[in-house]
Structure formats: C-alpha cells, structure tokens
C-alpha cells in the first residue's frame, strides 16, 4: 500500500469513526499476491477487503485499471463515497481515480486536503496552484486526497490481531463480467532510459573545508553566477 492509499484509507476511517453506521471496504486490483497489503488495510480499520487479481493485470494501463475497478464496484454494490489517493507511488500517473469517476459517471473532487460529510453532502477543500476552494457535492461521489490531508495511523498489535478475523474476498475477471478486449493497453512504453545529464561533474577537493570553500567560490565567480 503506497502512502497515498494510506491517506485515503485513514480519511475513510475517520469518517467512519465520526458517522458510526458506515461499512468501510477496500478494493485492490493487482497481478500479484496482495494479502499483506490487505491485512494492513484491515488492521488500520477497514471492515472488509476485496481483491481482484489476474496475471494479465501487470499489463494494465490506467484505462484498464479503472475499468476493472469500476466493474468490481458495480459488483460489490451501493456506495456513498469512493476515496482514493491522488496518485500512485510507482508511476505517479494520477489518472486512475479520475478515469474511474468517469466510468461510474460520478462527480469528483480532486486535490482534497480537508474533508467533511454533512448529511448527504461532502464538503471538500481543494489545494490548487494559487488558490484553495471549498466544494460541496452530493453523494455518491469520488474524492482524491493529497498527502497533507492526514497522518495515517500505524495499527497496534491489538488491531492487527483483530484484523485476522476480517474477511478478504477474492474476485476474478470472470466474476466481474470483464470484457477482455477492454483490458488491452491504450499506450505503449517504447523504451525506458536512464535520465541524461550534461553537467560538468567536477569534484572539488581539499585538505580542509576552508580550502574547499575557497576553490568553490573561485569557480563560481569564474562561471559568472556570483558576485558582480
């Protein structure tokens, strides 16, 4: 579970703690064994975990991932709120949450750093480049949270023990009625390169910090980046 997901889960737990009568489920789409991650989510406070896995999922792009998530959500049933992280740690694409909202035809609020639930509505504060805005939206809705929204809890031993009794439901592509052709990637990675640099890479060495600092300052004056 990436830190971004933890922030989303933490926020969901806080909403549940405030409102009481809420069932909190987590959903994961993966090509690998995700049991450890799911156990962690359950220990933090989720009631139930769903996992959809298939070896072919390692080829999923953001469209395919959102499609499988949407199919699974439709299968799981009614919901009021979907919370997800702003992005994922591996690729930072940040597209899946919004694609999911589109597939489920949901209103969405992204870049959320403060969230509250008022009756049927969500009130969310968004952090934009040069402003912040507070948005009201009727549930059901999808919310994407930022890292600053909260500090995710670390489950205690007690919570970990309790979580071992909670249910993990495994779903397959066939359970969900997924159309295989919709899983084919819409983008293709042609090449992965090491980032290139064109820097001088000069090491400044010396016997003492003073000597080094002296050489560095002279070099920077030569470059014309300091002094008049």
């Amino acid at each position, binding site marked *: 579970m990436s830190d971004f997901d933890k922030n989303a889960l933490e926020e969901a737990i806080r909403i549940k703690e405030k409102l009481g009568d809420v069932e909190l489920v987590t959903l994961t789409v993966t090509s690998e064994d995700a049991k450890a991650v799911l156990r962690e989510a359950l220990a933090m406070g989720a009631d139930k975990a769903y996992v959809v896995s298939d070896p072919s999922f390692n080829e999923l*792009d953001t*469209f395919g991932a*959102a499609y499988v998530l949407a199919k699974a959500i439709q299968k799981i049933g009614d919901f009021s709120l979907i919370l997800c992280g702003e992005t994922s*740690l*591996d690729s*930072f*694409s*940040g*597209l899946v*949450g*919004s*694609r999911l*909202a*589109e*597939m489920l035809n949901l*209103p*969405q609020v*992204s870049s959320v750093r403060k969230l509250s639930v008022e009756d049927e509505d969500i009130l969310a504060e968004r952090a*934009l*480049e*040069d*402003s*912040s805005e507070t*948005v*009201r*939206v*009727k549930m059901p*809705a999808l919310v994407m949270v930022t890292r*600053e929204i909260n500090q995710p809890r670390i489950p205690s031993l007690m919570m970990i023990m309790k979580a071992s009794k909670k249910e993990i439901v495994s779903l397959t592509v066939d359970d969900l009625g997924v159309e295989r052709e919709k899983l084919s*990637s*819409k*983008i*293709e*990675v*042609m*090449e*992965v390169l090491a*980032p*290139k*640099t064109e*820097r001088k*890479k*000069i*090491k*400044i*060495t010396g016997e003492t*910090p*003073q000597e*080094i*600092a*002296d050489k*560095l*300052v*002279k070099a*920077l*004056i030569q*470059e014309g*980046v*300091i*002094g008049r």
Partner: protein
Amino acid sequence: MSGNMEVWVYSDRHELALEMLGKGREIADKLQACLAAILLGHDVDEKADELIKFGADKVYLIDDPKLVSFQLEPYLSVLHKLAASYKPEVILIGSTRNGKPLAARLATRLETGCIPDCIRLSVDEQGRLVGERITYGGNAVAKIISKTKPQMATIPARAFEKPEPRERIGQIVKLEVKVEASRTEIVEKKLLETSAVKIEDAEVIISCGRGLEKKEDKALLDELAAILCGQVGCSRPLAEDRKWFTEWIGLSGHKVKPKLYIACGISGVIQHVAGIRDAKVIVAINKDSEAPIFEVADYGVIGNLYEVLPALKEALKKHLQ
C-alpha cells in the same frame, strides 16, 4: 498547414497554455497539421488574440457565462463535444490540479490513452506522438506512445520554453456549445498569499534535503542566501514528511531555473532533479560520495554540510567584498 489534421492545446492556466504553444507549434509543423488552441471562458477575446501571437493558427473560442471559472464537468462536456466533432489528431492538456482530472476524464470519454506529465514531446518517423515522462519511482524516463486516437498527453508547467510572441495571422472560431451543469458547487474560493518573491524567479537558490538534521539549522542556509541575495528552498521530504517547509522544489513542487543552485544534503532523486534541470550551475554538497546528486551537479563537494556551509560563508564574504 494542410489537410484537416489538428493539434490542440488547452490549459485552465493561461500562462501554461502559452508555454505549450511553443512545443505544440513544433509538433503541428512536423505533422503538417493546424495548431489550434481551445479557449473556454467568458469575455476572454483578449486571450484569444494572445494565443495566436504565441503560435496558434486557430482558436476555438467558447464564450459562455457558465464557463466563467473552471469547473470540471461543464469544461469536460464542452471539450468532449468539440473533440468528438472535430476529431483532432493530438490533444495536449496542461497538467495542473484542474487539468489533470480533466484530461483523464476526457481521455476516458473518448476511450483513448493519455501520456501524463510529459517533460519532452516529439513526433517519430511514423508520425506518432512520443511523450517522455519520469517513471518507476523516479529512477527512469519512459518513452511512451498512444495506440489510440486522439493521442493525448498532459504537460506540466515550465516543462517547455514559452515562445516569443509575434504578430501573426490566425483564425478565431467562435462556437456555441451546450454547457452541462456541474454537480459540484464551489462554495468558497481563497487566493493563496504568495511570498513577495516567487522561488521560480530567484537567481540563486540554496536548497536543503534530508541531510539537514534540525529545523533550526535552516539558519545556515538563510545566512548564505542573504549574502548571495538568493532564496532558500528544500526537497520534498523536508516539506511533506518533516513539515519544516510548506513548499518544495521538484517534479511535484516548484520547478526553478536559477543561475546558481546549491543543493545541501539532498540525495538527488530524479523527481527533485526534474525541478532543477534548468539551473545554469548546480553545486552539490553531500557527505555520501555515492549520492546521485553528484551525477547532475557541475561542482560536487563530498563533505558534511555542517562543516562546508560555514566555510563557504566565510569564503564568500572574503571574495565578494
């Protein structure tokens, strides 16, 4: 310009739209396509003229009171209708907090791919758009193409140089499109207080990373910044994890282009490097000789910042007097 092929540029931030027109122009020329900017808003005719000056052949202008400020669903509905009827070859969208969800939903509605946060864009021999983006936790650059059309990509601010404006002839196409209502309602909007000098404009930046042991030690950097008339910045962990700063320099934060960037105790993961690659001269000070920051620095000092910075302060005083 020939045929009906079009390359589109849209951003909810006008400055970014202007920046994107430079690269958009290059892509359109290679494809022998028309470069069109999409402008949504109310009473924005001046911006339309500006988009042409910065390189657009054509501006699709949708003027509607309902578009006076950005809201995802109304804007999405208009862009989708335009794209569905004009079928552009390429759509470039500014990767802002509003632009990213917009691009993702538009791509989904058009059942196409989207290459997010491209730091480089080109066209290959087969006329395909190639986007390069930082990936794999920041350790590599991936070259990606879209297998579906329109070929979509999002572009972060300051990835590309803003072109020089000039007097050009362009066409402004005013269209009436039905604007869908928003299910979200903005109940309050506050402009952020911006510091007097933006770090983007700083000529000298002294920046710290995880090598800084205590928040108070920032004073070491402040002293240097004062002598060099520069500003102090930091890498992401100091802002996001330690909360010592509210903003950071890097791919997800501010992208800077100072004359001099001094990285103190910054390891140099590629997300950070992506934010400083336009610096003229980069100096790295780090006690770990294996730190990747040395690979992207012009001058490297292997040493403890707590010893090097005070010495540097004295040396600067001596030489700059």
